[in-house]
């Protein structure tokens, strides 16, 4: 029983670790040539030499761009304890997200708002774009005078480049002209993000890019160890932690485990996916068994590696399978565009030639057809909003023939005739 709630504590601990990216990425930071140290160098230089900097953090999703940035900032706050200025540290960040503030007005509003919050000013929603930009520039200047570094973090950077890029221009231009110390950090998962910039913006942008890559294998093992192993000196019972870690390491050395990790690496290499995987594995840790077992990881990877189309096919009823097969046959016949009525025709011809047992009225077939529409196995080939009734709109399959035949095989009570027809 003691064991059990010890296990529960451990579980909670690991889960909270997994949900906290800063913790995850800590071990990847210590090497001197890591992105962490580069970024830290950039920011700290602008803090110390009071200069402006701009950098792009590029890399696929889940490679911890934002997390590393967070680490850098909080470490800087620790390193340069606040001596001169008012609230907050020498560094304070203004976060924007391309999803939320993609249009320039709202972005500038948001900047002004965060500045106001930072300096306990009253933020006015009424202020126009120009007011806000003026205000921002003024604040930048003030901060420059007060030797405070403003870090602009633009998440989903590529979304900011969609419009007229007035915001980017305003920011970068301010950083050119005004004597301030600001760091402009764009975070994007598009590796060509800097190509999206207009000329006037690009010219003001220092083309520093930090590329974030998925972890290598030994990094992954370091992460595993870092995340999963319990701290020996904590409120957890000591011997429990010891044996837990021992089991863990024995499992790491296990060959099957390594296979699992390899297969995992093959389909989704980034750290976030790893976290998901670990979360899944940890979350079905058996509390009575009180430590992680190999089966946990096995089930986790099986539950993460899904084939939605296959599942949909498995859910289909026989009639729906018939309709899918009819559509497949139509597509094999290179009918460039066909509608439900054509499918009905095919269905009927199949029935006439083979005398199948399931031949149903058109209404029922239409209902089944709408079901597979909802499932996303089929879609309309034309744009939405046509007045025409469904049975005349052109449709197309969304699954490959191979998937279809495989699904038919997998389907437990699929009639043999159907597989023959699909072949």
């Amino acid at each position, binding site marked *: 029983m003691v064991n059990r709630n010890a296990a529960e504590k451990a579980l*909670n601990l690991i*889960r*909270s670790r*997994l*949900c*906290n990216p800063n913790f995850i990425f800590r071990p990847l930071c210590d090497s001197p040539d890591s992105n962490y140290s580069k970024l830290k160098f950039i920011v700290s230089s602008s803090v110390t030499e009071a200069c402006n900097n701009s950098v792009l953090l590029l890399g696929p999703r889940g490679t911890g761009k*934002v997390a590393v940035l967070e680490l850098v900032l909080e470490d800087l706050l620790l390193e340069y304890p606040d001596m001169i200025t008012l609230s907050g540290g020498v560094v304070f960040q203004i976060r924007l*997200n391309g*999803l*939320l*503030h993609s249009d320039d007005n709202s972005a500038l509003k948001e900047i002004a708002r965060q500045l106001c919050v930072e300096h*306990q*000013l*009253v933020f*006015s*929603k*009424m202020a126009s774009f120009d*007011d806000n930009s003026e*205000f921002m520039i*003024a*604040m930048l200047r003030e*901060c420059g005078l*007060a030797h405070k570094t403003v870090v602009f973090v633009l998440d*989903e950077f590529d*979304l900011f480049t969609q419009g007229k890029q007035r915001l980017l221009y305003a920011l970068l231009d301010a950083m050119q002209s005004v004597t301030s110390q600001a760091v402009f950090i764009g975070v994007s*998962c598009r590796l060509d993000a800097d190509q999206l910039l207009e000329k006037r913006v690009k010219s003001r942008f220092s083309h520093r890019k930090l590329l974030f890559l998925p972890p290598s294998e030994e990094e992954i093992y370091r992460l595993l160890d870092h995340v999963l192993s319990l701290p020996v000196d904590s409120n957890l019972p000591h011997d429990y932690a010891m044996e837990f870690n021992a089991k863990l390491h024995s499992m790491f050395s296990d060959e099957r485990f390594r296979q699992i990790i390899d297969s995992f690496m093959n389909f989704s290499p980034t750290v*976030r996916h790893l976290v*998901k995987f670990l979360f899944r594995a940890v*979350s*079905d840790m058996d*509390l009575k068994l009180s430590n992680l077992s190999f089966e946990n990881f096995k089930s986790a990877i099986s539950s*993460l590696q*899904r084939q*939605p*189309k296959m*599942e949909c096919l*498995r859910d289909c*009823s026989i*009639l729906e399978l018939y309709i899918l097969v009819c559509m497949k046959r139509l597509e094999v016949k290179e*009918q460039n565009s*066909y*509608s439900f*009525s*054509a499918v*009905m025709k095919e269905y*009927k011809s199949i029935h006439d030639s083979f005398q199948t047992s*399931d031949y149903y*009225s058109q209404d029922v077939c*239409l*209902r*089944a057809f709408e*079901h597979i529409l*909802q*499932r*996303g196995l089929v879609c309309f080939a034309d744009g939405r909003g046509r*007045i*025409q009734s469904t*049975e*005349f709109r*052109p449709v197309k399959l969304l699954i490959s023939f191979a998937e279809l035949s495989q699904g038919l095989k997998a389907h437990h009570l699929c009639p043999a005739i159907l597989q023959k027809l699909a072949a």
Partner: protein
Amino acid sequence: MLGWFLQKRKMGKDEVPLITRRTTRSSSATAISTKNNVVESTTSTNICSPSPIDLLYGGEPIDLDVLLSNFPGRHPQIRELLQILGPLNAPMLPVFVYGGPSTGKTGILLQLFRHLNRPFVYSSCRTCYSPRILFESVLNQLSYHQKNSTNGYSSVKRCEKPSDFVNFLREALVGIVKSLKENRRKSKSSKKLERSIDGNMVYLIFDKLELVKDWDKSSTILPLLFNLDSMLNIPEVGLIFISSTPPDTFYSSMGYIEPIPLYFPTYNEDDLRQILVRNQANPKLYSSFLDVVLRPFCRITRRLDELSAVFSPLFIEYCKPLNDLAIVPNEDLKRKLFSNLQPHISLFLNETFRVLSQSSLGAERTKDGEPRGSKSKVGTCEDSDELDFHMSTSAKYLLISAFLASRNPATLDASFFDSRGGSADGRKRRRKPSEMAKGQKEAEEQELLSKGPGSFPLERLLAIFQCITSVAEDSLGEEVQEEDSLEVEGQNNPLMSDVLLQLSTLCNANFIVKGGTCPLEGSTRYRSVVSEDLALKVAKSVKFPLAKYVYRR
């Protein structure tokens, strides 16, 4: 404005203590209407005395076994959900629960939260049919706000932009988590018997997420929802998405970290049997009934709601010969029951819904139920041979001509209508040599198959209409004489006069659809969407030989 601005830079520079600065600021900013949101929202969350308790499911927490017994065939999913939600105060990554309609996703989640007795916020994207309403409903629930007549049915705060939503949401969540933690501390310190909340996690449930794909703002809303936790990053918040379509249908160009998928498969036959039998008066009888019907119907659909909707009247049919429904059927009784159920089964198999009529509550079929669906559409006339709603004669002819116009290729009008010389001047300029109709045919067939009934300009419709009516003159002989006696110069067709009004009527009744405008001349094109049997009925009602004119392939 300039003063405002100067004041700002002044306050940037000198270090007056905060209070005075705020006072000066606010005094200068009296003109500015909307006051600081942070303050008011936090107050609103704190003031509302009905603390997070009414984010609980309500009612008594149910036991896990009850939950499991309530949802037969769903035990693995329930266990998985429990593991993902984790023990008390365990933070979680977002979950994506998906599976076909009526597979118990929503029900299980809600009951699970009832069992766990943890606070959650539920908002279904069907009820909240637009981003604004979705945002506001979430915020309302988080701030325990009820729309009612006193507050003019308004929500706690107006929120349309995603950015506002995220800000408000963060404030509200922080407030709630704080209050949760402190009243946990309270309950720890003083063991009161009043219902307490387990854990300091708050869960946001977004149901029917697949509907968001159809919103016009979907390209921004979906990534927002999926990235919500990384934006908020409050570890005490759990996100749960429920959708009836698999995650890959939500793929967006910018991509996102998919939440943890959790799959609810459609019930298989045994599960369905268990579920359907579950609360029946006479399980034995019902299971014998299911032995008969379940397999054939599962070949059509395995959706629980549809099956139960079909079975409820069918079971009544099944029980008709029985005098007491508590009977436990033996074999031959089963056989007897099955034998007189047989016809009904094939009938119910082929219809999607039935209309009960008020005169005789006996269910009565509304459309062709016979298994030869598309082939014997014509045969469906026999159940109601004459038209069962009123149309004026000219409307009937117009309907027929529209049907012809969209069924026949335009090139064949000449060959169809020349034999009887209608005054088809409108059609003459459109007439082509009819040997090229040969080449037309295949293309025509393709066109008909692919995009259904063809469209036609108004002039063609009227030309055909004139021909038809001139053909059908004899059928309404006396009318013609009647109205000929009153001279209307020009053509002598009584039906012709108000034809445009009739056309508009037909358009309203959705028999003729006003199609897109033809690119060449600006005139709108029409298309008739009447089914063939209806057209035949109409033709029969005016004794018009429709079959002679329809172009058959």
